[in-house]
């Protein structure tokens, strides 16, 4: 085991310090050490998008980022996007469109869609589909998800 490194970040607007080994992924740190279990481990190799978070304004797969790389960065996870009492418009639209079944992929889809709407508040259907190509869902089929995102445009 190599020495733990002290990392200082901002997560969902709050300053957060943690210790981690260089080999720990940001996803492992979020879930196992910081109790932010919204980001999910689907594939652990960059293919499914269930672990997606926003890092310094960019969408990234947190399983393909080392925790130590987060030093000095601002991170937004699904926990920072809405709360049960105060749903984000994307979350509301996912409910209205029944855009989820088991829900494992959902945090990743919502974080990814949030990153899209932050950059492009009025995307076309094609733009939504290409942007979300790195998010996989085993249950629902993509149509309802795409419709939910389209319906959340401008409202987000």
């Amino acid at each position, binding site marked *: 085991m190599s020495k733990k490194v002290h990392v200082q970040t901002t997560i969902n607007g709050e300053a957060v310090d943690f210790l981690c080994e260089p080999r720990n992924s940001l996803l492992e740190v979020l879930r196992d050490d910081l109790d932010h279990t919204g980001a999910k481990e689907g594939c652990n190799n960059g293919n499914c998008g269930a672990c997606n978070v926003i890092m310094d304004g960019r969408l990234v*797969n947190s399983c393909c980022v080392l925790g130590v790389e987060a030093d000095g960065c601002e991170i937004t996870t699904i926990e920072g996007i809405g709360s049960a009492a105060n749903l984000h418009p994307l979350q509301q639209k996912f409910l209205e469109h029944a855009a989820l079944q088991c829900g494992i992929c959902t945090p990743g889809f919502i974080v990814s869609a949030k990153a*899209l709407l932050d950059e492009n508040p009025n995307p076309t259907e094609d733009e939504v589909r290409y942007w979300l190509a790195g*998010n996989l869902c085993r249950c629902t089929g993509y149509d309802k998800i795409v419709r939910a995102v389209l319906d959340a445009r401008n409202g987000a």
Partner: protein
Amino acid sequence: MHAFDYATPESVADAVVMLSDHGKNACVLAGGTDLIVQLRENRRRTDLVVDVKKIAELNALSYDAATGLTIGAAVPCYRIYGDAEIAAAYPGLMDAARLVGGTGIQGRASLGGNLCNASPAGDTIPPMIVLSGEAEIAGPNGTRKVAVEDFCTAPGRTVLEDGEFLVSLHFPAPLANSGAFYRRFIPRNEMDIAVVGVGASVVLSGDRSSFVSARIAVGAVAPTPLFVREAGEALAGQPVSDETIRRAADLARDAARPISDMRGTAEYRKHLTSVLTRRVVEGAVQRAKE
């Protein structure tokens, strides 16, 4: 994942010292979209990960219509296609930068990492070859330059020696009446590894009726991305016609030495090489006319 140390040098010189001290027991981290997965799956081992993203030269991105384009080796894809001027000047490179993985991967994945990973199917490598890209390498003996087509030597292997790393990639300014194009064939629409990928760049005569010069490169059909010099040379001085383009496509097909795997048989890949080369040269011609 096995344990390793992590370092963030802030200068090229510091990185060279760290890499030289550790030799084969160190590796460079850019976007990590290949490396972190390879370490996790025990396909690679290392004692030290040297994150080069804090080095200014590795993050530089600059374009000048006279001197061309310089891309720091760690600049992620989204920054490259996100620059409107660069995207307009190098559409052939954007074809590839926009299709590496999905949005999350493009937030991190660099052209430098794609080249140094040296996959035969690395999507950005054929377009970098046809745009006459040059790699600037730093090491214990100073810096040296290597043409992108000479950079990969075998699957996962490059010309980099112990202690050396890639600093930046340079591309000459686009000439008048020139165009470039990259396309790959995959069974899905997105998020897959190329069965075959082809890049082409062309320079046309002032009246756009003939080729002044052309460069063609093919991915996923040989142990390294393949520069097919003779296919481009066959177009030089020839009229732009179905017949001349078909001949270049046949030369690219003949140069291909593919293997059979789950993505396709060798025979299928050869056929695809010819079809894609034809379409990609036509695409490059179209852009040269725009």
